[in-house]
């Protein structure tokens, strides 16, 4: 029986390590870890540029398609449909982008590196929040391209540069907040495909049962009732007011409130299910 007697130096060092161990993660550490995770996500984006395809193509394609298909029917002609539609496309694009957040998180979580993240003394929220911070870049690209495409097609926003920037900022903010819901789906679903499927089922009613592409007045009463409370409608109205009139309406407050509620519900749910997972 070989009895290993630990050298005294080691015993002291281990004792020191146990004594020096922090009991929990501080807010500052959490922030730092989240930013480090965001750095990782940005590196990953740079090495897999195909991730930007949906962000880049969707606003360009959808803006053109919707304008030419619905323009005449909804607003008489394409040019007068644009002020109504561009903020709608903005909301839709940003929501699609945040759906990808959940799918990619799911794919990422299946890789071995997440095991290491879990075994490290870091805030449980950091591996979830990090990629979301990096995703701000994708929202910004998507939103800018939407307006860019609108400008190319002849859209002249009445709100000027300030109004448009305000609308973009609000859309990014909403996208980031709602992404927590998809992150949660990402942590509970069994596969990336499942995340995609579930997210689509959430996303389609949210974007199409809103005032993004048509006026609420044209809808039947029961549908109009849902459309009016849909947070996407608030975002679209707020973005229209900002981009077309540089008007900071009460809709902005409603949108931000919906964002806060989404974060308050889905951020804790995500962390909880991430902790349980695997």
């Amino acid at each position, binding site marked *: 029986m070989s009895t290993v007697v630990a050298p005294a130096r080691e015993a002291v060092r281990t*004792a020191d*390590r*146990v004594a020096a161990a922090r009991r929990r993660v501080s807010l500052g550490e959490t922030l730092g870890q989240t930013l480090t995770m965001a750095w*990782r996500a940005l590196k990953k984006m740079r090495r897999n540029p195909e991730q930007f395809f949906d962000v880049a193509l969707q606003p360009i394609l959808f803006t053109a398609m919707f304008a030419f298909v619905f323009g005449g029917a909804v607003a008489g002609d394409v040019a007068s449909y644009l002020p109504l539609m561009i903020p709608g496309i903005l909301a839709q694009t940003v929501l699609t982008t945040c759906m990808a957040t959940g799918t990619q998180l799911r794919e990422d979580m299946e890789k071995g*590196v997440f095991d290491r993240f879990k075994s*490290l*003394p870091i805030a449980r929220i950091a591996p979830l929040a990090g990629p979301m911070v990096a995703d701000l870049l994708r929202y910004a690209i998507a939103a800018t391209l939407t307006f860019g495409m609108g400008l190319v097609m002849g859209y002249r926003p009445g709100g000027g540069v300030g109004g448009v920037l305000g609308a973009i900022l609000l859309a990014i903010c909403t996208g980031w907040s709602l992404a927590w819901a998809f992150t949660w789906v990402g942590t509970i679903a069994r596969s990336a495909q499942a995340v995609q499927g579930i997210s689509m089922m959430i996303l389609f009613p949210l974007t199409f049962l809103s005032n993004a592409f048509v006026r609420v007045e044209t809808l039947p009463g029961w549908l109009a009732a849902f459309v009016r409370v849909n947070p996407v409608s608030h975002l679209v109205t707020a973005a229209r007011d900002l981009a077309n009139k540089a008007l900071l309406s009460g809709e902005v407050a409603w949108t931000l409130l919906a964002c806060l509620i989404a974060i308050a519900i889905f951020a804790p749910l995500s962390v909880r299910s991430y902790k349980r997972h695997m």
Partner: protein
Amino acid sequence: MSITELGRPGGDLSPGGGTDPAVRTEGLVKTFGAHRAVDGIDLVVRPGEIFGVLGPNGAGKTTTLRMLATLLTIDAGRAEIFGVDVAANPHVIRQLVGVTGQYASVDENLTARENLWLFSRLQGIAAPRARRIATELLGQFGLEKAADKPIAQFSGGMRRRLDLAASLITMPPLIFLDEPTTGLDPRTRGQMWDTIRGLVADGCTVLLTTQYLDEADQLADRVAVIDHGRKVAEGTPDELKTAVGNSTLQLLLAEPGEVPAAVEVVRRVLGSEPVLSPEQGRLNVALDQADLAADVLIALRTAGVSISSVSVAKPSLDEVFLALTGHETGDDETGASGGEEDR
């Protein structure tokens, strides 16, 4: 330090003068549905030793390690690391333990250097020091040349080394290695063994799992043999091997019908029972010394038992298992194929 004090979340963490075991588990249990993957395991790992957990696939080795590393919740029983309760203080445990998994847990999208940088920064190491540590570890593990290449181009052995390097960034006093050499070629395996010995020389305690008796023999000071989620034996590698003899005589009889006669001969010559293999006409005879094989063979010739093949081998894990549990490593249908060992 009293049990109640340890169990209280946020209780006193100061160790009892460094005399606590590196790991102590009592009646550790993990169930997946109806399957008890870990079924009441008691372990004590002393500071400064290499402790091996030996067992076949699905025995519950990885599950045990993952519970101790806070990657899985503990369903019943308790576990302490350096006197700190694992379930109550996961964040403290994560600062004391470095984990290297069965599958390399490094980021495929980053280079080796970026990986080490990422894990350093996450653990609050300032940027200049993180850079220095990354360079040092890359050198120590012979990865300088590949430092700035994407991991996707790495061989299995390189990934394992990087994975181990990532576990050593903060020099944790306790290191868990889950099957550190499974799937490595013999040369890389030897290098990994040297690295593991070096860790202990630096003052770390190592808890490793392995499927190879050979590996436990080479590395471990003490070994626990696990089967179906239970500990079936514990001791030094020498003690374990003595249980099955120092070497094994493997006999294949020309006539399977002569097995009872052969058993009788072995019993007479060695005074011990041979182990019958499920394969027809095959016998494994545990030997204290390899040269006793000749005595057995001569006696068999005299008794007129004809042999179609003969070999003398070191005891394998299979034989240790057979001797300790009375069944072979491959026949556990509940655990081996279930995916719970992996995730």
